[in-house]
C-alpha cells in the first residue's frame, strides 16, 4: 500500500494530465468569457446552483389542466462567496482565463492551479444553467489534486527555468495520480448506482429521451439511433455494465490500457451524440491518470512511427537545457524577475480583458451602450398564448408498437403478419404529464366488421400500457385493421395480415 501511494515516478504523466485538463478548461472558459456579465454577476442575474426557498406566500389555486406547471418558489442564493457586480465578474473571469493559460504553459504552475481552482470554485456555482455541472466538480477535484503534485516539473516553463534539471532525475510522488484514479472509479461507480436507482435508465427511456432532448440532445444520427428497435435499451445496459466493471477491472494490469481506451471511446461517443459541454474532455483528461510511463513511451513510439518528425514527440522531455545559459533564463531566474513578469502579465491580461468588455459593453452594464427597448408582441401571438390550447390526445402518446410478444417495454415479433393462435399486443408509451383517459383498441376484420375490442383506463402518471387480443381460430384470414382511440378520438391505426 505504501508503494502504491508513496512511490515516485517521472512527472510526465501528471504533466500530460495538466495539459489535457488545461485545454478542456481553456476552451470552456473562453466560450463563457463573453457572457461573464450575464452568467456571474448580479446584473445577469447570476443563477446560483445552491439556493434556498425564502417566501412561502399564498398563491391562487392552479388551473385544473394537467399541463399546468406550478410556479417555482422564490429563492435566495446559498453561497460561500458573494455574487459580484459586473466589473468584478469580468475581472475575475478574465483572471480565470489567464490562470488556465499559465497552468497550460506550466508557468508558476502551483499558483496558477490554485488560482484556477479558487476562481472556478467561486464563479462556477454562480451559473447553474450554462457553466456548472458535475463536469465542473470533477475538474475542481483534478485541479485540487494537481496543486499537490509536481505536474509542473515536465513540459512546462517552470521546468525550462529550472537550470539544474539536466543534472538530476526529476521525480514526483505518485500519490495525487492514485487519488485521481480512485476519483474516476468513484465517479463511474456513483453514476452506475444512480442509474441502477433510476428505472427509466434501465428501460432505455432515459437515454432515448436524452438524445431527443432539445437542450443537450443529439443531431440526426443520434436521433436515428433512437428509432432503431431495442437499441436505446441495449446501449443503456452496456453503459451500466461498463460503469460497474471499470472501477474493478481497471486495476488489473493487462486490462488497464484496453479499458482506458474503451472509456475514452465512450466519452468521445458521448461528446458526439450529446451536448454535454466539457464533460467528455475533462473525463478523458482524468482517464490519463491510469496511464503508466511505459504506456506513454509506447504511445509516443506509435505516434512517432506515423508522424513527420524523427523523434517521438511525447517521449521528448521538455528539454531546453541546451539553452541553459541563455540570457532570458538567467534574467527570469534572477530575484523577483520571474514573479514580477508574471504579475505584470496578469495585470496586463486582466486589464485588457476588462477594457474589451467595457468598450463593447454587450449588456449595457458599463454605461457605454443603451439597453435595447422592449419589443411589442403582436395581438395574434398574445391571443394564442393566453388561449393555452391543450395538446391533442395523440400528442400524449410517444410511441405505439404492435407485435406478437412483449417483455418489459420492448415489443417483439412481426407487426404486419400474424397467424391464428397468436396474440396481437399493443404497447403504448405516454409522455408526462398526461391526463387520465380511456384507451381503446378496436379490431376490424377484412369485411369491415368489429371482431374484438379492449378498453383500458389510463390514469395520470401511466408511462406504459400493454393491451391486446387473442387471434382465436375462426377468425377469417386476410387484412385486419387495428384502430386505437383515446377518449373516443382516433389517434393511430395499424394494419396487419392474418395468415391461416
Amino acid at each position: 500500500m505504501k508503494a502504491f501511494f508513496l512511490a515516485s515516478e517521472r512527472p510526465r504523466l501528471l504533466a500530460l494530465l495538466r495539459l489535457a485538463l488545461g485545454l478542456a478548461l481553456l476552451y470552456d472558459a473562453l466560450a463563457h468569457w463573453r457572457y461573464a456579465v450575464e452568467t456571474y454577476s448580479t446584473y445577469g442575474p447570476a443563477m446560483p446552483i445552491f439556493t434556498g426557498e425564502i417566501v412561502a406566500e399564498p398563491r391562487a389555486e392552479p388551473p385544473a389542466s394537467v399541463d399546468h406547471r406550478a410556479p417555482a418558489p422564490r429563492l435566495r442564493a446559498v453561497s460561500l462567496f458573494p455574487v459580484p457586480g459586473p466589473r468584478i465578474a469580468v475581472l475575475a473571469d478574465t483572471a480565470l482565463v489567464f490562470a488556465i493559460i499559465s497552468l497550460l504553459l506550466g508557468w508558476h504552475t502551483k499558483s496558477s492551479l490554485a488560482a484556477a481552482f479558487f476562481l472556478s470554485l467561486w464563479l462556477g456555482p454562480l451559473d447553474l444553467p450554462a457553466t456548472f455541472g458535475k463536469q465542473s466538480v470533477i475538474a475542481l477535484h483534478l485541479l485540487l489534486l494537481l496543486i499537490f503534485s509536481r505536474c509542473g516539473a515536465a513540459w512546462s516553463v517552470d521546468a525550462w527555468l529550472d537550470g539544474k534539471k539536466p543534472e538530476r532525475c526529476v521525480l514526483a510522488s505518485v500519490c495525487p495520480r492514485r487519488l485521481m484514479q480512485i476519483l474516476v472509479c468513484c465517479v463511474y461507480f456513483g453514476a452506475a448506482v444512480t442509474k441502477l436507482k433510476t428505472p427509466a435508465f434501465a428501460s432505455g427511456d432515459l437515454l432515448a429521451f436524452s438524445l431527443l432532448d432539445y437542450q443537450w440532445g443529439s443531431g440526426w444520427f443520434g436521433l436515428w439511433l433512437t428509432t432503431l428497435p431495442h437499441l436505446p435499451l441495449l446501449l443503456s445496459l452496456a453503459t451500466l455494465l461498463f460503469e460497474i466493471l471499470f472501477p474493478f477491472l481497471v486495476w488489473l494490469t493487462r486490462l488497464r490500457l484496453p479499458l482506458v481506451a474503451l472509456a475514452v471511446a465512450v466519452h468521445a461517443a458521448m461528446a458526439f451524440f450529446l451536448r454535454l459541454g466539457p464533460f467528455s474532455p475533462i473525463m478523458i483528461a482524468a482517464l490519463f491518470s491510469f496511464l503508466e510511463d511505459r504506456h506513454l513511451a509506447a504511445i509516443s513510439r506509435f505516434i512517432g512511427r506515423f508522424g513527420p518528425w524523427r523523434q517521438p514527440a511525447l517521449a521528448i522531455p521538455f528539454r531546453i537545457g541546451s539553452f541553459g545559459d541563455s540570457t532570458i533564463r538567467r534574467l527570469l531566474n534572477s530575484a523577483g524577475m520571474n514573479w514580477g513578469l508574471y504579475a505584470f502579465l496578469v495585470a496586463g491580461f486582466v486589464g485588457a480583458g476588462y477594457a474589451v468588455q467595457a468598450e463593447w459593453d454587450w449588456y449595457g452594464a458599463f454605461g457605454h451602450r443603451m439597453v435595447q427597448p422592449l419589443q411589442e408582441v403582436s395581438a395574434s401571438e398574445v391571443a394564442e398564448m393566453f388561449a393555452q390550447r391543450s395538446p391533442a390526445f395523440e400528442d400524449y402518446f410517444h410511441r405505439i408498437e404492435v407485435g406478437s410478444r412483449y417483455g418489459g417495454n420492448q415489443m417483439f415479433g412481426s407487426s404486419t403478419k400474424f397467424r391464428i393462435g397468436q396474440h396481437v399486443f399493443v404497447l403504448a408509451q405516454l409522455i408526462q404529464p398526461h391526463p387520465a383517459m380511456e384507451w381503446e383498441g378496436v379490431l376490424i376484420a377484412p369485411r369491415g366488421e368489429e371482431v374484438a375490442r379492449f378498453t383500458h383506463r389510463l390514469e395520470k402518471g401511466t408511462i406504459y400500457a400493454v393491451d391486446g387480443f387473442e387471434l382465436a381460430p375462426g377468425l377469417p384470414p386476410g387484412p385486419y385493421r387495428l384502430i386505437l382511440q383515446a377518449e373516443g378520438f382516433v389517434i393511430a391505426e395499424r394494419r396487419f395480415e392474418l395468415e391461416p
Partner: protein
Amino acid sequence: MFRTLRESISRLPFLTRFRRRAQVLGATVYIAVLVASLVQGALGDPALFPIAYFFTWDMFPSYDSQSFRRIALGKTATGKYVRLQPSSLQQYRGGVHGDLTRVDIERRGLFYRSAVMQSLKSTFAIQEHDPVARIFLFEEYWPAKFNYPDDLYKHWSGDEKPDRRFWRLVDEFDVAAGAES
C-alpha cells in the same frame, strides 16, 4: 547491506517525514470522504447539502418527455404587451439549435421570475413613458417526439410531423409585487 523501507524512511530529514505523513493523512481523508459520499449517495440521504454536491456522482438522474421554451410578457399601463423574456440581457444561447437562453436551460424555472424582473429593471428608464404593470410568465411546450427532423419522424412514426406548439401560463403578478420579492 540493503536498508528496509522503514529504515530508509526513519533516516529521512524531519521535513520530508512530515510531508510524507501529511500526504498519507490527506490521501486517507480524501478517500474516506469519497467512499462515504458514495455510500450516502447510494442511500439517497440528502444531508450535508450543498457540500455533498461536490462528492456525489448522480449524472443523468431524470429526463423530460416534453420540451419547452420560456417567453414572458409584460402588460403596460396603456394595455400593450411587450416581450420581457428573452431579453437583451439573455444573450447566452445553448441547446441543440443554439436558441435556448439560460432561463430555458434551467429546467425547473427557479430563476424565471428573477431574470424577468432584472430585464424589466434594466429597461425601466426607456420604458418610463409606458411602464409595465403586470407580468405573465409563459412556457411554450411540445412533446419531445416533435424534436425529430421531419424525415426521421415520418420514418419512425409512419405519419407526417405535425406543426403544433402549446402554451401554458406558469405565473402572473403585478410589477410592484414582483419588485418586492
